[in-house]
């Protein structure tokens, strides 16, 4: 019955659907309308009384490239600037309308620690537009977007650009603490004698460099190691992981070939050719993948280079506005940004289970069920991590013992899950993935039909995020 109604509702002419939504909203508190809403339960809108509707006008990203390829001589703000210019070009938004710019990033280039500001200045935004940078590991650009939502919802801003950037081709490698200390002391030394006495303390081991930590600071465990243990805890085999990775690459390849990845904007790299598409999509065969040795837990682990996301360079940006502002400016937005949720849990044994915790919470907050979601976009850090999350969501035992729930969250149907590829195949520039997920959900809803998308991601530190994206009526 419900599905029948849903079906008819879906096929209503656009205008009447639009009208229905419009007239319902102002009356949402009256009982009459609630009854009416009851009949179209699964397709109500998530607008809330007295809160501004917030829309994504559009979003773009640079092609995501394997680290050490065409972007390797750039600096992070160069990439971020490319995304910002791309967004300006795509949306034609007047530069001085933008109230604020927020970017997410993880490994910071020390010269441009507020990379948002450096990129904005270079991209030709008004120098009167303030910009700040946020960091929250792999959900940094999610944080940039939700910060924008907060600024708009509270009436502080009307138009905000949010984005993210990561350049793993170059990372800040530092002198050792001892060497740094000596160099600073040397700076302070005034006389030759003082300088000589500082220099005399030099030892050869001062020269050994310090790399940015690849491991979790609190547990000293690398993420790949943790992912391998997570896969083992959920008894996920190497074959399952390889199969899932192959699915991701195959779907990404198809999406690329069919031109579905419309958020990608070409980028003319100075001194190099124009980059037009992602270069990490490489569907292989299960046999080929089976030959790889484990990358983290040697020699018996199951996480390999083929079933993990690779180090990626890339940047993304989205234009977020208050709905009335967008409409007043004559835009046709792509999607609403609705309820969102941040979660965190044990960074040792549940490092990558954020989506499992965040998904039910955000659904409950929005009053939706798993069945209401038409497009799932989950960040794929590792095949093992995605499969572990799916198993955890499908387990009553896990829900009861670790989530304090009576029953399991439920399994997202795989046919609606990351249909255009994911981080495993498209790549994962840490700070930029969140915007890609949101744009993928929005574009899929437009292309495939459907009203709600669910974006979810895990992040270092045992944190997680989920957000509901609602298609903007056509």
């Amino acid at each position, binding site marked *: 019955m419900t599905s029948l109604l849903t079906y008819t509702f879906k096929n209503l002419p656009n205008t009447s659907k639009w009208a229905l939504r419009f007239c319902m909203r102002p009356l949402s508190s009256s009982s009459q309308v609630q009854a009416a809403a009851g009949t179209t339960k699964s397709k109500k809108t998530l607008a809330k009384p007295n809160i501004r509707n917030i829309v994504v006008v559009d979003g773009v990203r640079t092609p995501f490239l394997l680290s050490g390829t065409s972007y390797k001589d750039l600096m992070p703000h160069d990439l971020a600037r490319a995304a910002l210019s791309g967004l300006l070009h795509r949306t034609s938004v007047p530069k001085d309308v933008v109230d604020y710019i927020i970017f997410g990033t993880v490994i910071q280039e020390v010269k441009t620690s507020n990379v948002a500001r450096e990129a904005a200045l270079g991209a030709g935004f008004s120098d009167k537009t303030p910009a700040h940078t946020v960091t929250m590991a792999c959900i940094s650009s999610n944080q940039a977007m939700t910060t924008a939502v907060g600024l708009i919802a509270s009436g502080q801003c009307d138009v905000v650009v949010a984005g993210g950037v990561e350049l793993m081709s170059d990372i800040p490698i530092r002198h050792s603490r001892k060497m740094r200390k000596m160099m600073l002391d040397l700076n302070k030394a005034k006389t030759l004698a003082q300088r000589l006495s500082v220099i005399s303390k030099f030892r050869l081991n001062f020269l050994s460099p310090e790399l940015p930590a690849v491991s979790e600071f609190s547990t000293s465990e690398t993420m790949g190691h943790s992912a391998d243990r997570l896969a083992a805890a959920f*008894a996920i085999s190497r074959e399952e992981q390889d199969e899932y990775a192959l699915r991701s690459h195959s779907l990404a390849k198809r999406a690329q070939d069919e031109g579905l990845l419309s958020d990608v904007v070409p980028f003319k790299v100075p001194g190099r050719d124009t980059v037009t598409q992602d270069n990490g999509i490489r569907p292989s065969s299960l046999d080929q993948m089976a030959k790889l040795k484990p990358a983290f837990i040697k020699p018996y682990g199951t996480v390999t280079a083929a079933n993990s996301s690779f180090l990626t360079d890339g940047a993304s940006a989205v234009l977020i506005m208050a709905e009335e502002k967008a409409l007043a400016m004559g835009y046709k937005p792509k999607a609403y940004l609705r309820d969102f949720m941040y979660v965190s849990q044990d960074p040792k044994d549940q490092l990558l289970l954020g989506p499992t915790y965040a998904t039910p919470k955000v659904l409950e907050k929005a009053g939706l069920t798993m069945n209401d979601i038409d497009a799932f976009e989950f960040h794929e850090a590792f095949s093992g991590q995605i499969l572990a999350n799916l198993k955890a969501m499908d387990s009553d035992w896990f829900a009861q013992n670790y989530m304090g729930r009576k029953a399991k969250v439920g399994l997202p149907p795989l046919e609606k899950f990351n249909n255009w590829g994911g981080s495993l195949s498209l790549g994962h520039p840490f700070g930029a993935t969140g915007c890609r997920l949101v744009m993928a959900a929005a574009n899929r809803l437009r292309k495939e039909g459907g009203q709600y998308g669910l974006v979810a991601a895990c992040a270092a530190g045992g944190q997680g995020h989920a957000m509901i994206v609602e298609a903007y009526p056509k």
Partner: protein
Amino acid sequence: MVASRAIGSLSRFTASRTLRCSGYICRSFTRASALLTRTHINYGVKGDVAVIRINSPNSKVNTLSQELHSEFMEVMNEVWSSSQIRSAVLISTKPGCFIAGADLNMLNACTTSQEVTQISQEAQKMFEKLEKSTKPVVAAINGSCLGGGLEVGIPAAFDMMLTGRSIRADRAKKMGLVDQLVEPLGPGVKPPEERTIEYLEEVAITFAKGLADKKITPKRDKGLVETFYLTEMTSYALSIPFVRQQIYKKVEEKVQKQTKGLYPAPLKIIDVVKTGIEQGSNAGYLSESQRFGELAMTKESKALMGLYRGQTQCKKNKFGAPQKEVKQLAVLGAGLMGAGIAQVSVDKGLQTILKDTTLPALGRGQQQVFKGLNDKVKKKTLTSFERDAMFSNLIGQLDYRGFEKADMVIEAVFEDLSLKHRVLKETEAVIPDHCVFASNTSALPIGEIATVSKRPEKVIGMHYFSPVDKMQLLEIITTEKTSKDTTASAVDVGLRQGKVIIVVKDGPGFYTTRCLTPMMSEVIRILQEGVGPKKLDSLTTSFGFPVGAATLVDEVGVDVAKHVAENLGKEFGERFAGGSLEMLQQMISKGFLGRKSGKGFYIYQEGVKNKNLNSDMDSILASLKMPSQPDVSSDEDIQYRLVTRFVNEAILCLQEGVLATPTEGDIGAVFGLGFPPCLGGPFHFVDLYGAQKIVDRLRKYEAVYGKQFTPCQLLVDHANNPNKKFYQ
């Protein structure tokens, strides 16, 4: 053992968790339904790998008992004879324990060394067969793997045979004891402990298969060229008899120095290894089993096994669970003791307020806690994050804020009755009704402290030993008014702090201080009789005390020693007499307070290891010199004068009901006061040495010095009736 590889699972996290593996055991039974009759071991075949699961029924740990042993041989014979099976995996289904070594009850039940020798020989046969197994055997170890358990899994290393120290899994991998590490898993779709064992088994099976298929070579990888050369060089050097003799000599010297010849086992081990190398492995095995048999029958062995059992008993709360678990603790006084108590509380996750009256004193205490935790980071037993999380359980403050939420307050202020009274009154004005007030004192009677309390049923004594984070003992003192729930609560907190606990009745000096005081009195007399501090120290350590008697006075503090001796002297009169307190008085007036002031009998300097005698003591010693009594002043007599006074007082404590059980008396003496562990504590000592012999000694000294050596009634009863033992 060439063909066997071991896989150790990092046991640090799983070791202490409770057993939740019933579901898993059921599963393994279904795979081997025909073999249900075995109780300790069952096995199933997965492909061509035999999975042998060890699980002693009704016990938290697996021990090498005779039943386990025979079942194991039975199973292994089946494995070896089956053509289907090409390799085997050994695994325990108990989370956190592989095999915890030989079954002490089994050894205890033996009455002759021949019986033990036979058990040992059977075990050797088993290990030898395992070592020479034609099919690869993989031992999958999760948790403790001790003694014989280690031999099942891994060829033993020389160093470990001697000292019996425990090794973390990652160290074991570095040492080459184990080949692979499997880290414990987190939550999945079943309890993590259960899944970890399953996973360990899966990994072990792939290794067993790999070994059988020769895809993995059994040789341990020597990544570094140096390591290779080193082992080559060592084995070449060992082939020269002269070098070997030198090594034996060196090792023997070192062992002799460390054990003072009081512990027979290490020397016998060297002996056995020597036999094995010089006369071949068969002679070595024979010698090993014979020596093992002999050792099991020694007094030392009985004493140490008794101590082990006692320690296990004192790690239980016989008063039951307290009505309200202590969640918020407060410690008054951030001195050495107060900060120590805070440290052992916060590192177990107990929220602790540390209160002192001045900022510098508080800061010193907080720094002590931090240093204690940070030292563990340096030793890599804690991560810096764990340290920080633990340290955040500590709140330092100068006022009584937050005390209204405290469940227990432990005061560790100066040993002064009026100060303790003041603190008690101040505290009772702010704490809730259910809150326990515990006093950390070494000699002030708890009953006297409690006189000013509005709620004496909530007042109890908790006597910690310094340094608190190293000394295992906690002496809990109950007055007649202390309620049972208060005691249960104090024991519970103590156990959570990782302590071994004895509960004694209130009285001057309780149990530990009371036993120590007459011995200290004798120490002073012996010094007055002209025996130098160095000589006295060497006499006491060679008897088995870990710290020499003169050094002990310095460590305790001369002022504390005098304070206690005076107080208890008043209470107990002539029995506690002996040396003149004038010596301590003179030392105090000259500022020789022991280690804390840098001078006592010895001089203490930062960074100087060998301590020198304090020559300024000569005049004090000379001025108080007494004539020595030649009949009772031989080295042995001096040792026994000290020990018998200690033992006699301990037995009197049992006679008077201060002690509830001899076990607590032994544990208190060994863990709190350093009574020689090889003697097993005063009560074990009387049982093993013979009550009559001790009474004879006491009578001999009584004849010279009088009442101080009069044996107590209970000891005399034991001497009169040789069947009477403290331990049956």
